[in-house]
């Protein structure tokens, strides 16, 4: 990929985010001129940079968005929700395009059509008052591109009929002019053949030479004619067909209004410039001047870097230069597409254009008088200027790989202790063993620090997971007709990126649930004596080595009676449970599989998989979910997640000679009780600990491993806590705790649900880590 394009794509992502954020803030606080300016500048920069590449749709769409924003900035329009919707949609579309560009280095084929619809929408609010200065600035309003004068080669009647048709159907046609050069026959080109291949061709017409030669002077091998054509084919199709002669073809997309205006005699004097030139409200505007410099510098770089600049690239560079020149108040003629000439023009503009006297450029710009610095600036192509610490953008995979290596290092390091033991036991050298242990402790310290450093790199603020919610809440609340304020707290709390990523889906579920089921309609709220605007609070706090995320709403809350009844109807609880269950327990029923209280299934949530899925995915992360709710005042869902998933602490126990790991967070205590103290209640072994009866499961039996405990020995029992319940596991022996990098069970082992993963121990043994929930399930089935 061309480095300039790669740079553009990288920056586009940031620009899009800032536009999104700005628009949402703007909707809340429409009057803030600073915000409008910010969004406008982002859109403007976007358009400016996009001009360097051959993405006409992108440029046109951002141009339309920019015009609308400019009108808002100038106080000629007030931004309403409809406009915000359109603007957001436009930038969403751009985001989609850029994803496509990243892969294929061109816009998707549907770009033209998609853009046309949005452009018309965006232009809508501007079109109302055709006499205001807004329109003067951008003379063509409803048009997708200004009608070029070469349309006159088509017959009037046909244009007339077509204009009516396009207006009636609100559709557009693409018009192209193809002017083959005189010598094209010698290169085995046949323009008419090319045109005959244009799909969905509506009309062609001939562009005759200015003067036909007399029959005697006629050179039949010189191509004198050109063609204009109208087609329903997409931009992509046209680009492809004319890919060898792009500089001889000009394509515009026109709608009925544009044609009509053309027929009425309004022709844009300089169609090319009018289409792409930035809205220059004031050449002295330092922001515009700054952008123009950035574009010029970028053009200079790309002219210099690419000795053989192709026709299209050259044309688009020329475009940008012309736009920039216009912004600087210098109308240069760039009719000749000649690399040297362009370079010259750029140099002249960069070097000689005097700084606008009325508003001197900001000091930062003056400092950049050395040409080298200008070029750097062009590369960075960032008119905002990076202020603050230098930040490296690193590919996620590289960090993941680094983490894996740290894991391997830990395993290799742990091997040293075994080596020390064997040095002593097998070779009888106590000194050597001690020295190895010394080395080990040094290595251990470095490995720990390295691990901490890598973990730190992987830490992301929770704002990454929260960032999509303002938009989600806004869109959904509009759709549901609810009035909701989203409050976010503690976005800068950090957690491992895996946790953040895995958190995204559960959070969406929970917020949707709150929106859909929790929050009442404004009327209902008023009737209940609450303010009509509901509030959803997303908050995050760090709590030791865990992060706690809460989703709270002040909606109707959960009715425990209703929930119990529903659960009973669905056969999730027995009749006794229905009678005896407390309110808190009842609320937690919503996490059971197959539970949904919504009377009607909506497309937002309410298929009875939501909360169940949330609990499952949070538990997979090693976290917990709890819910508290008070009828009438709202609900709070609390997610507790480990800060990091990369390293898991496990307790190693052995059963029937085989070692297993159990996540330490589940372990409550380890006890040894004499065999006689184990009692039996209802076919279940139990042990009484401090007055509490704890069921004991024989782990060996649950895993079907033959083992009988020694009658005389004490029983070793590991007490774990799962969903607030204590369970004892009868094991053969306790070992130490180890930090392991857990690898999921994959491939042939994927079926074994009772294990959550494997880990490599320092002595090279593979440790199976138990998934306690499944193991208890197995034990229950076996009993």
């Amino acid at each position, binding site marked *: 990929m061309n480095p300039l394009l790669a740079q553009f794509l990288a920056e586009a992502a940031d620009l899009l985010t800032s536009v999104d954020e700005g628009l949402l803030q703007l909707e809340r606080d429409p009057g803030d001129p600073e915000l409008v300016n910010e969004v406008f500048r982002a859109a403007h920069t976007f358009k400016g940079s996009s001009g360097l590449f051959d993405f006409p749709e992108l440029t046109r769409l951002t141009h339309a968005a920019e015009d609308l924003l400019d009108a808002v900035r100038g106080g000629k329009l007030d931004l309403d929700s409809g406009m915000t919707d359109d603007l957001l949609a436009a930038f969403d579309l751009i985001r989609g395009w850029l994803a496509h560009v990243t892969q294929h280095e061109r816009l998707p084929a549907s770009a033209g059509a998609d853009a046309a619809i949005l452009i018309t929408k965006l232009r809508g609010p501007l079109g109302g008052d055709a006499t205001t200065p807004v329109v003067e600035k951008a003379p063509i309003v409803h048009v997708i591109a200004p009608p070029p004068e070469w349309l006159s080669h088509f*017959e009037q009647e046909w244009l007339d009929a077509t204009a009516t048709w396009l207006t009636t159907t609100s559709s557009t046609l693409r018009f192209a002019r193809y002017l083959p050069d005189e010598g094209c*026959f010698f290169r085995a080109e046949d323009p008419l*053949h090319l045109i005959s291949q244009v799909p969905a061709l*509506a009309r062609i017409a001939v562009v005759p030479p200015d003067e036909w030669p007399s029959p005697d002077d006629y050179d*039949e091998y010189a191509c004198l004619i050109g063609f204009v054509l109208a087609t329903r084919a997409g931009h992509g199709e046209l680009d492809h067909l004319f890919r060898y002669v792009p500089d001889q073809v000009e394509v515009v997309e026109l709608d009925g209004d544009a044609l009509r205006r053309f027929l009425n005699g309004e022709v844009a004097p300089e169609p090319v410039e009018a289409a792409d030139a930035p809205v220059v409200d004031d050449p002295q505007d330092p922001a515009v001047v700054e952008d123009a410099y950035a574009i010029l510098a970028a053009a200079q770089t790309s002219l210099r870097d690419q000795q053989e600049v192709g026709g299209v690239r050259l044309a688009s560079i020329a475009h940008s230069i012309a736009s920039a020149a216009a912004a600087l108040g210098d109308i240069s003629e760039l009719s000749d597409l000649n690399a040297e000439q362009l370079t010259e023009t750029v140099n002249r503009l960069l070097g000689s254009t005097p700084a606008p006297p009325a508003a001197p450029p900001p000091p930062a710009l003056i400092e950049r008088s050395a040409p080298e610095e200008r070029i750097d600036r062009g590369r960075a192509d960032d008119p905002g200027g990076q202020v603050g610490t230098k930040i490296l953008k690193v590919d996620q995979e590289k960090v993941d790989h680094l983490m894996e290596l740290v894991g391997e290092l830990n395993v290799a390091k742990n091997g040293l202790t075994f080596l020390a033991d064997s040095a002593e036991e097998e070779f009888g050298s106590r000194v050597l063993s001690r020295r190895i242990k010394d080395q080990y402790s040094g290595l251990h310290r470095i490995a720990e620090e390295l691990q901490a450093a890598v973990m730190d790199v992987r830490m992301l603020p929770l704002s990454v997971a929260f960032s999509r919610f303002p938009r989600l809440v806004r869109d959904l609340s509009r759709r549901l007709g609810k009035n909701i304020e989203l409050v976010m707290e503690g976005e800068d709390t950090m957690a491992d990126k895996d946790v953040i990523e895995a958190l995204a889906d559960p959070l969406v579920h929970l917020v949707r649930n709150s929106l859909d089921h929790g929050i009442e309609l404004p009327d209902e709220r008023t009737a209940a004596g609450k303010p009509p605007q509901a509030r959803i609070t997303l908050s995050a706090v760090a709590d030791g080595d865990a992060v706690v995320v809460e989703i709270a709403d002040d909606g109707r809350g959960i009715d425990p009676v209703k929930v119990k009844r529903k659960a009973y109807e669905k056969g999730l609880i027995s009749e006794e449970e229905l009678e005896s269950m407390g309110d808190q327990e009842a609320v937690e029923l919503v996490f059971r599989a197959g539970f949904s209280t919504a009377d009607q299934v909506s497309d937002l949530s309410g298929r009875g998989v939501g909360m169940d899925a949330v609990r499952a995915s949070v538990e997979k992360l090693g976290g917990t979910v709890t819910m508290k709710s008070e009828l009438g005042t709202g609900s709070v869902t609390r997610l507790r997640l480990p800060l990091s998933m990369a390293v898991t602490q496990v307790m190693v126990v052995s059963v029937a000679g085989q070692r297993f790991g159990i996540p330490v967070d589940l372990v409550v205590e380890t006890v040894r009780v004499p065999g006689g103290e184990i009692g039996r209640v209802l076919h279940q072994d139990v042990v009484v600990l401090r007055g509490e009866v704890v069921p004991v499961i024989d782990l060996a039996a649950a895993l079907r491993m033959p083992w009988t405990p020694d009658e005389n020995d004490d029983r070793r029992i590991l007490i774990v806590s799962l969903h607030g319940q204590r369970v004892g596991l009868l094991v053969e022996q306790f070992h130490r705790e180890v930090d392991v990098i857990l690898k999921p069970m994959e491939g042939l082992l994927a079926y074994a649900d009772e294990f959550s993963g494997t880990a490599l121990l320092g002595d090279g043994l593979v440790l199976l880590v138990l998934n306690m929930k499944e193991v208890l399930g197995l034990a229950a089935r076996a009993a």
Partner: protein
Amino acid sequence: MPLELHEATATLTDVVTVDEVEPLAAWLRATEKPKVNLRRCNHLHTGALQALLLFRPKISSAPANAFLAEQVLPLLAGGNGTASRQGSEPP
């Protein structure tokens, strides 16, 4: 042979390539009231079209080929394109 030149009529058949442009132009230049039969013509090279546009021969027989009939013939027949409006109505 894509090009059959007779005294007053030229018959263009199948694909008229750049090789036929020169003889066609020479014939048009020399012929008093040329007539061109395009009925079985499937494609006209741009050079041939240009020659036909310059010399404006009478098209004695319309081409059967859809593209030529709908799009190219109006160019030849209509001078400045005012006559035939075949295929021009937007669907």
